[in-house]
């Protein structure tokens, strides 16, 4: 056991020396680690952005049922009751002709053209309608199917769902394409990074070829030779990742309020904060594994250790 700790200690010391003595290669390795970290965090954010966008759009998918002018309030309330009883329906709100007009007037105060047009109108051009809020878009589809086949069909002027659906579906498909595209880019970046890491580790080891040969001649075990390199890999990965994390946190802090302007529920800062340990543990673990595998392959392929 003592022998093991002495060898481990030696590995740590020699690995640290390598980190300092091979400064230029260490710098390249740190940069590569930074790029891999950036790619992986990019992947995480693409998925997070895509999911936020989807949720945001689904929430925006309002489903309104507009009635013809001759439909009575009683009939509308009857339909409101039936729709409220649908599974997955959260709320059904009746917006009367008057309420709709009042709302439009309020909104048009900032637009003088609409305001003037509304003043010139003698009658209220708007109709009564029901605003349905459901848990997901599938519920809207079920309600519209029901309404179109029911006797109420003749009383309905139009359903807003079908107008919005196409736009939203296109946006969701765009976010899915974005996900795939980002995944592809990140896979490529990872492959390039592995190649760079592989080659810089190879160069680092090549400069120590003689030392490795001497150690082999002196009867050093493979682990005795490997340990300093593996510790070196651990060191530059840790430094690279910590450097990335520092820059990343500054970036998140500075852009904290910006992202919610694009999509209200997209907040990378809080997303990272909520999942800080899990995400960092997984990403750092993945990078260190990637780098250690590269080092292992180099040692095995070129030095047979």
């Amino acid at each position, binding site marked *: 056991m*003592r*022998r*093991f700790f*002495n*060898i481990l200690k*030696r590995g740590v010391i020699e690995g640290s020396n390598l980190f300092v003595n091979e400064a230029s290669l260490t710098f390249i390795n740190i940069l590569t680690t930074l790029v891999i970290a950036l790619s992986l965090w990019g992947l995480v954010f693409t998925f997070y952005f895509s999911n936020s966008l989807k949720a945001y759009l689904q929430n925006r998918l309002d489903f309104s049922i507009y009635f013809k002018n001759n439909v009575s309030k009683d009939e509308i309330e009857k339909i409101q009751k039936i729709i409220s009883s649908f599974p997955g329906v959260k709320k059904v709100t009746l917006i009367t002709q008057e309420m709709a007009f009042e709302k439009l007037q309020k909104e048009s105060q900032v637009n003088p053209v609409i305001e003037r047009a509304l003043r010139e109108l003698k009658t209220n051009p708007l109709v009564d309608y029901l605003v349905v809020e459901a848990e997901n878009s599938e519920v809207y589809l079920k309600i519209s199917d029901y309404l179109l086949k029911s006797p109420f069909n003749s009383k309905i002027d139009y359903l807003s769902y079908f107008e919005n659906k196409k736009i939203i579906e296109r946006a969701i498909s765009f976010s899915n394409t974005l996900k795939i595209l980002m995944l592809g880019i990140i896979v490529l970046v990872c492959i390039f990074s592995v190649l760079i890491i592989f080659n810089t580790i190879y160069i680092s080891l090549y400069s120590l070829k*003689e*030392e490795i*040969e*001497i*150690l082999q*001649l*002196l*009867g*050093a*075990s*493979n682990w*005795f030779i490997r340990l300093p390199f593996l510790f070196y890999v651990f060191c530059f990965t840790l430094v690279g990742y910590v450097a990335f994390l520092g820059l990343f946190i500054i970036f998140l802090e500075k852009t904290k309020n910006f992202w919610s302007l694009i999509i209200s529920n997209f907040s990378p800062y809080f997303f990272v904060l909520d999942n800080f340990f899990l995400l960092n543990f997984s990403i750092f673990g993945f990078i260190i594994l990637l780098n250690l595998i590269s080092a292992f392959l180099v040692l095995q392929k070129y030095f047979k250790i």
Partner: protein
Amino acid sequence: MIVFKNVTKIFSGYLKAIDNISFEIKSGEFVILIGKSGAGKTTVLKLINKEIDPTKGEIYYKNLKITYLSPGKKRELRRKIVTIFQDFKLLNKKTVYENLSLPLEISGKSKKEIEREVLKVAERFNLKEKLDQLAETLSGGEKQKVVLARGILYNPEVILADEPTGNLDPINSLEIIDALKRLNSEGITIVLATHNREIVNQLKTRVITLENGRIIKDENPGSYTLV
């Protein structure tokens, strides 16, 4: 102690470096392998310390067949059979102390144990003043002394010396040969490969002469007192 039975080594499928040789080296012997460049001296040493495997034949070390060994067994063997080279094989960017520490670090010794043993061996080889010097700043003779000192830190049973005086002036050569004689008198088996006739004449010990990979003479004048 070391037995070669009809050993042949062919490199790259056609280059016969050793051709069907057999010999035995007894424990405590001082044996000189002599021959021109390319005669096969270094190949014999590499076969003994398992840097290479033979193409044909069998090799024994202390009655154990070592013709083919696993990497782990090779490592174990290299702590009993140490090699010193003409080109020293020192870590030039490290100090003498660090170079001498290596075998002890490989053995997993603690810092204190390393310090104690390195100081002991440095004193023995008059290297105490040089401990903080980088290996690359030493003279050829000093480097070879460091290599010898590093070798004996394993308490080896055999020392293989491959042209250890090849890069040294006569005075330093003499010092190294004297050091080897001293180690032999302590019971360590020495196998020295050289093409230097003067050393052979001076040592007056068993000489195996190689030519084109074959043993052409194996004589023991007996003038040198063997242990």
